[in-house]
């Protein structure tokens, strides 16, 4: 069996390039991070209407990513949407009790995400607490309906 070193080198480089490519797809394209998942804590928030919010959506504060939406379910006590937020562990015990959560839209047609705004209460939120002050998603149909009914009234 004749084997040339260049052929072995070629196959080795080929396989290495494939593995590196997969790493590129993981890190650069799908945005995985190599660091171990940092400790997180969860908060609950009830929204009257979540619009198009989906699990895995971003949670931001002042535009900075601080966590993600981990679950969305229907709260059958109040018939509104119960959204579970998974936030950076560094924020545990830092957010004041009257922090507000709003469902915002990135751009006109972009994805929806949750924006937190800080409050002024000296008491802070811990793991599993519920945000009481929430603002629902902007649903275009409702806005148009309001606009039309206002026009009719005038």
């Amino acid at each position, binding site marked *: 069996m004749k*084997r040339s070193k260049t*052929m072995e080198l070629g196959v080795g480089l080929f*396989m290495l390039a494939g593995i590196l490519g997969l790493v590129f797809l993981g890190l650069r394209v*799908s945005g995985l991070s190599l660091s171990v998942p940092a400790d997180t804590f969860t908060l609950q928030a009830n929204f009257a209407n979540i619009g198009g919010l989906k699990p895995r959506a971003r949670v931001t504060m002042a535009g900075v990513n601080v966590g993600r939406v981990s679950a969305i379910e229907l709260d059958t006590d109040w018939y509104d949407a119960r959204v579970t937020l998974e936030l950076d562990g560094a924020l545990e015990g830092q957010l004041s009790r009257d922090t507000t959560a709003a469902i915002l839209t990135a751009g006109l047609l972009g994805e929806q995400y949750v924006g937190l705004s800080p409050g002024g209460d000296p008491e802070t939120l811990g793991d599993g607490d519920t945000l009481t002050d929430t603002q629902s998603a902007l649903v275009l149909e409702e806005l148009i309906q309001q606009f039309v009914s206002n026009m009719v009234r005038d």
Partner: protein
Amino acid sequence: MIPRVIALGRHGCDLLEALGRSGLFLAQSALGWPSREGLYLWLRQMHFVGVLSLAIVLVSGLFIGMVLALQGYTILIDFGAEQALGQMVALSLLRELAPVVAALLFAGRAGSALTAEIGLMKATEQLTSMEMIGVDPLRRVVAPRLWAGFVSLPLLTVGFSVVGIYGGFLVGVEWLGLFEGSYWSNMQASVDFIADVGNGMLKSLVFALVVTWIAVFQGYDLIPTSEGISRATTRTVVYSSLAVLGLDFVLTAVMFGGLS
């Protein structure tokens, strides 16, 4: 009437027999622990099937990524959503185009060559001579080629995606002036590693199995004449292309169609 039914029955039996023969053939050649010699043989086939296919796959990937970005940009800009270009290019490449186009190119570039090579070995009675001297042609000739195909097509698919996404970056960002940050960040926000990259790789593994299986079996099973070789080579390309496109629909329906 009766002769037609008989002919139909004969076709059915032939089809089942060929399926059974090819299944046995796959099991006999792909299973089994490789010897040291087998590893060398596999390495040689990896060079031929994988490394030498790299050029055509990467060049096609670059152009497909560039075209996707160009077409996508002109459509998305009508909606003011050109920021979603990275997302569009990456998702269409990872989920569909890279596995399918790489498999089609692979069938044309490597599959046909495998069929012709094994077919010529059979026509010149090299395979029979091997059996005569006590070497199993399934393990000596077929198994290294099968395994080289299984391993190299997924690697080629990864290369196709990476180069395609880079091609989209070249056209979208460098040429058309899209903001670089939105290209990558929209992509990262929408691509999921397991659901998109993982399922694309799974597709590619299935296609690798099917394409190399068809190519090698057609070569091993052909009528050992020059006409038989040419027919088998054509059949390899036709059957593997059809199998890839058909299976792609089924796999997409299962993976992304919410049919589970």
